[in-house]
């Protein structure tokens, strides 16, 4: 029998249905992989070993339930999802001792579908970062090269999936935090349409951008997870009531019937030659299979980094005002006085990058600068959304790179935040627009994974998955990370 930890989500579900192995076997195999690989990867902030085993045994005792599509399947969730009674730090010291008294809607839905949560994965503090180096609890390492970052902010989730700890993980994507680490680690990641998935119980960063979604090693597995977590929620009025598609059973698109728009501004970036080589080869392979391409101008994308960082920072400064040392989280024992309590608790509990973004957000919202920065950025956001709509006229999806460089060595940009922000330019537009997109491996360049990104129309996740299945068949599989 194949080693159980190698199985994808759908494959494992079939094995469980055929009684080839038990949920306990599968969860044990995942926990053993975590035990063996964690010293190298550092993907997990908490491993819920006993709880996961207990749950798997309960499931086995109850017997296989075909009405629960994730029955007995081990998954990881990023440490921004509230799990009742379990650590939920969001990668921050300020939440080190926090134990939520409630569960995120997506966690509740994963469990209702039969999934077993085995670990909470590492991330940049409050999901602010693109390398997982800004986690207060240490970095996660890239499965392909432990001297390099896994991307971020869902870097732990990507490493846990690409490193075969779990067949799927849940992340969040505010400016690329699912798609970029998936690309840098060599797995797939889906950011659903804003409003497709409930945000209830997710530690908030930028509330008009945040969206939860799956990371996995197969397109089909993304669909399995999305089908389980999508849909309206009485606890989040931004979660849409539109019918949930049959994401777990989409037909593969025919390459000859696909026209993909190539946004000029993203393909004209200053690429690392190794990345460019992989991207060009992938485009040739897709064209060879019959996919048609169409160059599409999106002139306002040159403003997307400034637009995103103004708006997301503004939302972050508002959302993170709740961390005041009073109701939960770290409380400073320093100077007396209420204002000093706020100031010292926040300064001690929050990391440098988070404080930087709160400062930026506070500045752009402050009297005298609101119009020139915050309102202006919201207007440019509208222009970018209009560019996106026009770009999709006459094509089915947009195709773009995910990152202009492969996974980078630790410390490359930690002292240069502005350059780090600019590296996000490929992934930010989708969040500004609120549309769905996914990243998938395009090949290896210099031994490191390079990703491609498909972007679609709002609420057309089914179409996106269908096209991705066609691309998955054409593009070369990456194989295993070395040292697996």
């Amino acid at each position, binding site marked *: 029998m194949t080693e159980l930890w190698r199985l994808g989500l759908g494959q494992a579900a079939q094995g469980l249905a055929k009684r080839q192995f038990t949920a306990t076997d599968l969860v044990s195999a995942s926990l053993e992989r975590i035990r063996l690989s964690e010293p190298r990867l550092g993907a997990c902030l908490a491993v819920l070993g006993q709880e996961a085993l207990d749950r798997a045994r309960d499931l086995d005792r109850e017997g296989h339930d075909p009405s629960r599509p994730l029955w007995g399947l081990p998954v990881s969730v990023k440490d921004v999802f509230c799990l009742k009674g379990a650590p939920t730090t969001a990668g921050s010291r300020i939440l080190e001792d926090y134990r939520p008294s409630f569960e995120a809607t997506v966690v509740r839905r994963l469990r209702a579908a039969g999934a077993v949560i085995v670990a909470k994965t590492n991330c940049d503090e409050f999901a602010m970062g693109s390398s997982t180096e800004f986690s207060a609890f240490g970095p996660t390492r890239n499965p392909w090269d432990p001297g390099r970052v896994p991307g971020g902010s869902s870097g732990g989730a990507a490493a846990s999936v690409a490193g075969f700890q779990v067949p799927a993980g849940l992340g969040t994507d505010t400016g690329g935090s699912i798609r970029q680490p998936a690309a840098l680690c060599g797995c797939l990641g889906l950011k659903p349409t804003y409003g497709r998935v409930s945000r209830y119980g997710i530690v908030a960063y930028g509330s*008009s951008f945040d969206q939860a979604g799956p990371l996995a090693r197969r397109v089909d597995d993304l669909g399995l997870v999305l089908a389980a977590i999508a849909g309206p929620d009485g606890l989040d*009025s931004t979660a849409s009531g539109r019918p949930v598609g049959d994401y777990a059973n989409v037909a593969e698109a025919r390459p000859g019937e696909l026209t993909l728009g190539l946004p000029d501004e993203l393909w004209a970036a200053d690429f690392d030659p190794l990345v460019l080589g992989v991207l060009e080869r992938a485009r040739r392979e897709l064209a060879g299979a019959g996919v048609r391409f169409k160059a599409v101008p999106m002139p306002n994308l040159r403003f997307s980094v400034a637009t995103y960082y103004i708006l997301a920072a503004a939302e972050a400064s508002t959302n993170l005002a709740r961390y005041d*040392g009073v109701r939960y989280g*770290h409380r400073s024992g320093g100077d007396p006085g209420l204002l000093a309590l706020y100031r010292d608790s926040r300064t001690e509990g929050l990391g440098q990058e988070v404080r930087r973004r*709160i400062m930026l957000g506070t*500045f752009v919202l402050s009297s005298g600068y609101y119009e020139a920065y915050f309102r202006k950025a919201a207007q440019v956001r509208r222009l970018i959304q209009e560019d996106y709509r026009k770009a999709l006229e006459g094509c089915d999806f947009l195709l773009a790179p995910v990152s202009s460089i492969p996974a980078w060595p630790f410390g490359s940009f930690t002292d240069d935040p502005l350059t780090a922000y600019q590296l996000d330019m490929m992934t930010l537009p989708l969040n500004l627009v609120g549309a769905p997109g996914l990243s998938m491996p395009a090949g290896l360049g210099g031994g490191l994974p390079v990703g491609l990104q498909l972007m679609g129309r709002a609420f057309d996740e089914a179409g996106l998955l269908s096209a991705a299945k066609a691309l998955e068949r054409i593009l070369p599989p990456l194989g295993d990370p070395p040292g697996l």
Partner: protein
Amino acid sequence: MGIDETTARAVAGLARLELAGTGEGDVRALVEEFSRIVGYMDILAEADTEGVEPLYSPMVDPEPPRPDEPALDGRKAEDILGQAPERVGRFFSVPRVF
């Protein structure tokens, strides 16, 4: 625009943060970096937004608010109060303000 230390300190005050680094000379470096980031944002001045309605949320179809009824999810006041770093009986505790 550039940001000087006075402005940066005022912003930090509004954000309830100390403008602090880890060592000597850090404050100046923080201010310079903050100034550089804000300076980059000025690129937006080049965008023609005359008459453009701001887009604050990409939400397509907001759901109506749920009925105004207490949540019956079994949570008790103690679940919330139990998270407080300091409390007095049934209350969150803060330093005296007068």
